[in-house]
């Protein structure tokens, strides 16, 4: 595959931006396909395989994040995310989505072309099975097998609710999570203001983690009723 012959698929709901980006890429000698939303993209993917996907994050219907997650499982072309929100970026390229690079709007055409060329040079993504194993302090957590082992390779036993909570913290490390956010992510609903069950699960989890890695103080309380995983989470082999 030579660079100039590469086909690039643009998924962007703003017609003007879609056209302008397409023109920039055409001038550079790329082949261009364009869609305005997820169904349009699926229609194009049904008949052709692009070498790279440029994906806007905020789309009507199925949004960019969800498309990204869906494609990551069985597609190998690299994905370049376009976003108007710079504060979402670290989550996008973060743990779960599988995007390869991003550009914050507004961007210049030269910047866009440079990113695209660099990604094409790296070639299709080598399909690595998504392993969700993380080092958390001295602990090793496998989110799929739902297992935790400490530094002596001894297993740490958590209840299902405690593990869900830990997974919630691991996916958002070093971030203050309020009781409402935790409730929304672990149970899909906001907890009642007087419901202390999340606090109780947190305190049980803290006790177990403290026992597994004494002195690490992995989860702490923050002044206005939030909780925080204090250590860095790194993917483990």
């Amino acid at each position, binding site marked *: 595959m030579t660079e100039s012959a590469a086909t690039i698929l643009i998924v962007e709901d703003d017609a003007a931006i879609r056209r302008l980006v397409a023109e920039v890429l055409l001038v550079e000698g790329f082949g261009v396909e364009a869609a305005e939303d997820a169904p349009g993209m699926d229609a194009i993917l049904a008949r052709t395989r692009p070498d790279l996907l440029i994906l806007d994050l905020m789309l009507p219907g199925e949004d960019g994040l969800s498309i990204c997650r869906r494609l990551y499982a069985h597609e190998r072309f690299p994905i370049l995310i376009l976003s*108007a929100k710079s504060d979402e970026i670290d989550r996008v390229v973060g743990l779960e989505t599988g995007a390869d690079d991003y550009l914050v*709007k507004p961007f210049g055409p030269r910047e866009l072309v440079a990113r695209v060329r660099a990604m094409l040079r790296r070639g299709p993504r080598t399909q690595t099975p998504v392993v969700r194993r993380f080092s958390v302090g001295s602990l090793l957590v496998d989110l799929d097998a739902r297992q935790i082992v400490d530094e002596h390779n001894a297993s740490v036993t958590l209840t299902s609710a405690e593990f869900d909570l830990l997974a919630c913290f691991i996916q958002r490390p070093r971030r203050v999570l309020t009781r409402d956010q935790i409730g929304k992510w672990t149970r899909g609903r906001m907890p009642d203001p007087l419901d202390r069950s999340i606090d109780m699960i947190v305190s049980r989890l803290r006790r177990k983690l403290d026992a597994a890695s004494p002195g690490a103080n992995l989860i702490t309380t923050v002044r206005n009723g939030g909780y925080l995983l204090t250590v860095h989470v790194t993917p483990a082999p």
Partner: protein
Amino acid sequence: MRLTAAVRIGLVIVLSVTIAWIGTVALFYLSTAGGTRNTRPLPGQIAALVTLLEESSPELRPWVLRAVTSQTLTARLEPGLHIGVTPRLQRVPRLTARALNQYLAAVGGRPNSVTVSREHGGQGGLGFSFATPVDLELRVGLATGETLVVDALSYPVINIFGLPVGFAAGLTGAVIGLIALLALQREAAVNRLQVRLSHLVRARIALLGGISHDVRTFLTRLRLRVERIPDEEERERAIADIADMLHLLDDALLASRAGAGELAEELVDFAQVVRAEIEDRGAAGRRVDLRVAGATAGGWQEASAAQIAATRQSGVAITLPRDRVPVSASPPPNTTVLGDRLALRRVIANLVDNALTYGNAAHLSIDADSESVSLIVDDEGPGIPADQREAILEPFVRLEDSRNRRTGGAGLGLAVARSLVEAHGGTISIADAPSGGARVTVKLPLFVAR
């Protein structure tokens, strides 16, 4: 439980009725029962009983005793004299004994004692109580050589103040309940106000966010179209204008989020954020350098001075921050703060841009102690007069009177920096740099795990 209007009104009614009832009962007792407020044996009654017993024949005495026995009074005779000692400190026995003595004096006086009855569980203490009745035991030595023992039971009808037992407790409780209800009502009103305010603020932030997103879409189109301007100088200016607009928009959005307490909270390595921000500037060929406390200061200053000299000669110099953060023997200080990464980057960016625009260079240093981390930004410009240092932190205030945008923005940079720093619980201050320029110091509290 939410305190709905119906619940509140219900509580008010119940409380009002309770208070009205207690008040009526109190009035009743105080007015009608006032004369006979004491159910204790009257001292005159005891004195009469003594006389009667002494005068009647031994066969009649049991009948006399039977005649005076009632629910609140039992009398019996014991052979021999068993007179106790009236405690001087207990008020009720003392007063009763005094009255009794007066009556007994009329018949020649008898040895007597009044004590708090132990048999009936009467309490010790001072014999002075609102809440509990006092049972008394009266002993009088008769002329016949026997002892008259009278147990006076005080049934818990009214206390010595003539009010029903527990009246004070009930009244106090009702008053406390009323006060609590008023406080609750007040708080509910304040809560409603807060909820409404926070809805308003959120709506405004959502609106700003929506506008920001749409403006970014327009700016993206514009940015792509600008590329077609043939004149290179014009094109560069247009691109710079777009960047300025974006900057202003981000500032406004961040400042409004900070004002509403909606900033993200995460653990951020402040020194690392500073480094990243400086690398962006350094890569663009601006004069920026950084010193981190704990590094060898002398080495840095030497290199920096040489660098500055070189800069003056050549006009342009790049001071890469990574080279200026020397590898040192002491470990780098902990600069972890709890805050919003974007907001902190914006603070640093605004200060560095100001220093570069008005002071030609930005010399940054980071210093941390056990509680806070400080970022000091020095420049080489004319400095800021002492009387304008407060004012310059306000929005739309600039040092130059004209608000032309040739040298800078709308005068929001420092104001935004201040609101963001204060939202992080930090402070920002302006002073003179040792080199003669302005010195801006940002101090942020370090994160302490609990």
